[in-house]
């Protein structure tokens, strides 16, 4: 081998058709850490790890056989110390004195490959980050949909709770709590816009007798029927509320003292004329009161209470407006 080729700034080996090494230059021996006699006659494979060997056989061998030339083949050699040496391999196959020969030139590419590996890993990281982001986004969207659904459910449950908290369990009409709020609202309306309103307090006559004679179940069914009857007579939802026991209250917006009393008398008659299945006959006493400037939430209830008391005193099954006893 020419001196210049021995020391050339690249590795050089010449292999035969089967892959055995015929010639090797000094540079290559230095890289690999072998003596010339250790390397000549050996198969090229011995310089390769299992994977590199496989790759060499799968790609290098058929290509050189078919095309007599391989360019820029990247592979890792393993030297005597077991270190990996990444190289670029160019090879040429030709027939020399009747025998096929393959000349191989190697250029080390340690730094290049380090950069390349770094780039590669950065690219993989970026790709992964990108995928992760897309996945996270899809997950977030799912969560959003779920939250919206839960919100809907919560709103519905809230409405249901609100309704429950404002409803009398037995009669299914408004309860005292709702009445209190409604009263406040109507006082505000009166104060701000001058809209007059009246209250009726309805109490069943001798309700204790009903319970004592027919039992509490019968008493309950009377309360339910009366609640329905009052609501039907008033004709507006949410106006009739059960305060508790056998006591009902009715808010009448836009109704003056005279009108409220008329309505109360009408209710007396309706109750009296209604068909009461178990107890056959039922009457109520009604106190009425109309809100005035001097009134408060407390006084109006006090007035309507006094009127009712008077109606009871007057023999029941009748209505008294607070005006009449003032």
């Amino acid at each position, binding site marked *: 081998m020419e001196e210049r080729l021995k020391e050339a700034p690249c590795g050089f080996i010449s292999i035969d*058709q*089967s*892959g055995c090494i015929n010639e090797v230059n000094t540079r290559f021996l230095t890289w690999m850490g072998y003596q010339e006699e250790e390397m000549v006659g050996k*198969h090229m*494979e011995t310089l390769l790890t*299992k*994977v*590199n*060997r*496989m*790759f*060499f*056989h*799968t*790609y290098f*061998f*058929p*290509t050189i*056989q*078919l*095309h*007599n*030339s*391989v*360019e*820029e*083949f*990247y*592979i890792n050699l393993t030297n005597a110390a077991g270190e990996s040496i990444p190289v670029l391999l160019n090879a040429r196959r030709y027939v020399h004195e009747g025998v096929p020969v393959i000349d191989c030139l190697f250029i080390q590419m340690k730094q*290049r490959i380090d*950069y*390349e590996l770094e*780039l*590669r890993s950065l*690219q993989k990281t*970026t*790709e992964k980050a990108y995928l992760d982001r897309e996945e996270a986004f899809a997950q977030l969207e799912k969560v959003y949909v779920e939250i919206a659904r839960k919100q809907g459910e919560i709103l519905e449950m809230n409405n249901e709770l609100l309704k429950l908290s404002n409803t009398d369990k037995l009669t299914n009409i408004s309860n005292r709590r709702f009445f209190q709020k409604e009263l406040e609202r109507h006082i505000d309306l009166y104060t701000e816009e001058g809209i007059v309103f009246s209250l009726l307090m309805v109490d069943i006559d001798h309700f204790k007798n009903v319970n004592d004679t027919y039992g509490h179940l019968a008493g309950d069914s009377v309360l339910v029927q009366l609640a329905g009857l009052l609501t039907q007579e008033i004709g507006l939802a949410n106006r009739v509320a059960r305060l508790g026991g056998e006591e009902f209250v009715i808010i009448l917006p836009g109704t003056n003292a005279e009108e409220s009393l008329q309505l109360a008398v009408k209710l007396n008659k309706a109750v009296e004329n209604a068909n009461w299945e178990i107890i056959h006959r039922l009457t109520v006493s009604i106190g009425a009161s109309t809100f005035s400037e001097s009134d408060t939430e407390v006084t109006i209830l006090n007035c309507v209470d006094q009127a009712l008391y008077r109606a009871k005193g007057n023999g029941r099954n009748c209505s008294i407006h607070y005006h009449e006893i003032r």
Partner: protein
Amino acid sequence: MKTIQQRNHVKIIGQGEQTILLAHGFGCDQSMWQYIAPALAEQYRVVLFDYVGAGDSDITAYHSEKYSSAHGYKQDILDIIDELELKDIHFVGHSVSSMIGMLAAIERPECFKKFVMIGPSPCYINEPGYTGGFEASDIADLLTMMEMNFTGWANYLAPVVTDPAKDPQLTKSLEQSFVSVNPQIAREFAEMTFMSDHRESLVSMTVPTLIIQCSDDSIVPIEVGEYLHAHLPASTLHIMQVKGHYPHMSNPTETKKLIEEFIAN
């Protein structure tokens, strides 16, 4: 619409009454048969082809989903059989083509007469009780190696792998350069080859089969040849005293003789 012959770059040589179908292996194309095909053509009609994605095939016919499994490539063989109306085929498959061809022969045994496998392996990865020759990590390293050879380092700057079907230019020209191989197809072919396991199909193979195994093959250890022989119902195992994975290229005369003898008997 291209014909299957155009799609798979089918070439027919020789005038014999009997047909030999030569199927190339991993990382190659039909030119790998150049050392034995002309000799076989003296006596037989020899059909050569490139799988879709390889050689001069029509790359626009390549679909990752179809060709991610050996069954996609099997369909290439069945398509060629149908279009050429081939019968009583003597099939010769190299490497992964042995298994692809076997799947075709299991599906249509009536089309095949004799079957030759050169350096076949039903499974490349070691498992308890089975020697395939490689660990899963070796295969992952091989795929990395391929990727780095085929894409070239500048390509790492390109963020998205494009659909190979959209850039047929990639696979053309510069055959001696590894850069010419379409990286995505090469990778998918490698994954299909090295990650599949055909061991359960072996028992269904009824066509008489010759297994040609090299005594020192860096890709397929000798145990694999023995395993195949034990599990293929109608098989003969022949071990060639040569090194390597390509006896039809390194020892074409002997390989041709083995094939002809097996077909004749």
